[in-house]
């Protein structure tokens, strides 16, 4: 066991030193871990026949191909992250809010919550055909995103252990939460007879390098947007129980509180380093990351509109609500956010969806030769780029935490 751990750590080290080029597309980073080795004992379930999924072996799914919009695995400059939180380098670092977060994570509100029961498997067997396919894809994306967060948080915990023990413990406890979520999702996938081999993913996935401060901005947003996505689904299904495909969603209320708390910790990290919130650079990055996360989610979800419709949701309304509320949460922290309630904002996003849909359809069209497809794509790509630029320069709002000097909210005199 100890030897296995050592070997694993060695591989982790060698992997984290290999840096990948910066990718401008904003990540939707979710953090989850899974220590569970799923053992598929059932014979192959013929419910999966014809859905087009490949398996590595019986009951274990080949991971979906990585694209610009799929969940990514991340690495960062751990030495630079240490500089942000090291007690020796930052003797005056304000720890009050960080310690408050630590206490919340130590409470472990969901310790006994994610326990399955006998209704799961039978519910999975009732999901068939096209709905089964899109549901499996949803579970896979979610599990991969949670697991990616687990890996990052666990590595951060390991690297910060000596220089900043409180922050390291917080990252470790967050990786505990992520592990539960990823494990829960992978158990769900095994009900569909297509579990992921997360160990294999750890070793073989491409890792994207991201600067530490970008990790904090992006992860804050992904946790908050994760909260709003899952809580909106939960509240909708709570009122429309017939639309629930699978009992997983019954656990979403508590799950969401984990997401929300993770976002709060990242907020505390930013507030502990005010230059990440009150400089002109901070304003540019704040707006950029908001837009990256919102646009990525909007395009992704509209590619999978069938999933949301299977739950009885209107994809467009769901997405716009999630973006509006995430933006309101973010107004309490970031110095600048896009004004997503300006009517032209969602008009631009809807146009991007239309163009993206055409691009995807062209890609899927096997009747046209490659060069012709490339030629037909050119005007669409130009159109997409133009829309993207217009989104980047959309109307913005000055805001921020009332605790941060220089934020637009700090001048607020009434509570």
């Amino acid at each position, binding site marked *: *066991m*100890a030897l296995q751990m050592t070997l694993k750590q060695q591989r982790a080290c060698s992997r984290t030193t290999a840096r990948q080029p910066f990718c401008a597309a904003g990540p939707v980073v979710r953090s989850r871990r899974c*220590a*569970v080795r799923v053992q598929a004992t059932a014979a192959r379930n013929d419910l999966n026949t014809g859905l087009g999924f490949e398996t590595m072996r019986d009951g274990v799914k080949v991971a979906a191909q990585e694209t610009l919009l799929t969940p990514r695995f991340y690495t960062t400059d751990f030495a630079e992250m240490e500089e942000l939180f090291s007690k020796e380098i930052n003797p005056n670092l304000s720890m*009050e*809010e960080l*310690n*408050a977060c630590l*206490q*919340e994570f*130590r*409470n*472990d*509100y969901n*310790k*006994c919550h*994610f326990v*399955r*029961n*006998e209704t*799961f498997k039978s519910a999975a067997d009732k999901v068939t055909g096209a709905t089964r396919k899109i549901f499996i894809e949803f579970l896979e994306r979610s599990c991969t995103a949670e697991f990616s967060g687990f890996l990052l948080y666990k590595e951060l915990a390991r690297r910060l252990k000596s220089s900043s023990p409180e922050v390291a*413990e917080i990252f*470790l406890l967050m990786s*505990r939460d992520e*592990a*539960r979520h990823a*494990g829960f999702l992978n158990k769900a996938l095994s009900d569909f007879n297509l579990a992921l081999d997360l160990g294999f993913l750890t070793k073989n996935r491409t890792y994207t390098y991201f600067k530490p401060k970008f990790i904090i901005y992006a992860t804050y947003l992904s946790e908050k947007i994760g*909260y709003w996505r899952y*809580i*909106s689904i939960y*509240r*909708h299904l*709570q*009122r429309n129980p017939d639309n629930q495909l699978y009992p997983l969603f019954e656990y979403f*209320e508590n799950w*969401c*509180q984990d997401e*929300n708390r993770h976002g*709060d910790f990242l*907020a505390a990290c930013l507030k502990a380093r005010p230059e990440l919130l009150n400089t002109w650079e901070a304003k540019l990055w704040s707006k950029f990351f908001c837009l990256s996360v919102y646009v990525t989610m909007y395009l992704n979800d509209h590619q999978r509109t069938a999933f949301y419709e299977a739950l009885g*949701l*209107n994809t467009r*309304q*769901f997405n*716009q*609500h999630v973006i*509006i*509320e995430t933006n*309101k*949460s973010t107004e*309490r*922290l970031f110095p600048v956010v896009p004004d997503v309630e300006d009517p032209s904002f969602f008009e631009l996003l809807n146009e991007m969806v239309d163009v993206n849909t055409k691009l995807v359809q062209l890609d899927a069209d096997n009747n046209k030769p490659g060069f012709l497809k490339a030629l037909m794509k050119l005007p669409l790509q130009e159109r997409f780029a133009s829309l993207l630029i217009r989104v980047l320069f959309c109307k913005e709002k000055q805001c921020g*935490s*009332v*605790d941060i000097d220089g934020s637009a*909210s700090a001048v*607020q*005199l*009434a*509570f």
Partner: protein
Amino acid sequence: MAQTMRTQCTSGTAVSRKAAVASINRTVARPFTAQRPASAVVRANEVAISRKTFVARAAAAAETPSAQQSGQTKEWAALVCNCDFFFNDPQNESVAEQLRERVRFFKEQNRENDFYIVPEPVWLDKKFPELAKQVKRPCVALISTDKTWITFMKLRLDRVLRIDLKDMSDTEVLAVGGEVPEFKPVGNWTAPYARYTPGWWNVFLPNH
């Protein structure tokens, strides 16, 4: 204890890879099973027992100061803001979820509730007149003897005024000076579900 836990982990039905994280002396997340393995049940009981002991010790520690200094009262911390923000903003529906979760947590831990929602607290105008001017009316206070948790809620809510309530009796702290108004649905409701039913907060009022 750490040694015992590690050994038990290794010999248990579900071998946890996280057993090696020895420096964090807390229960490690365990694999999920619909039917808990016997060793997990035993361990769960063990953890529950040790936690009860911890709670008892904490209670004993809390009693000592009050015995030594007669008249000593708990110190409360408060977050104050207007009712419309706290109760009517869709953003803060998450507060209802958090408070329900915390109540559930306290029950599981056999802990007494230590927080309340106090509409129009009497002490605001009486003891903090300058600060009271910064608050729109009608207002509300979220109060607790757990100052760390109040710090956490300040981080979550941001647009609230934090006030430490020193040298005040529990009766003074919990004195309610008004009611939460009835809210009419205003503005643009963008969510694909209905609002929480007004009045979810009643269970958290001091005289409930």
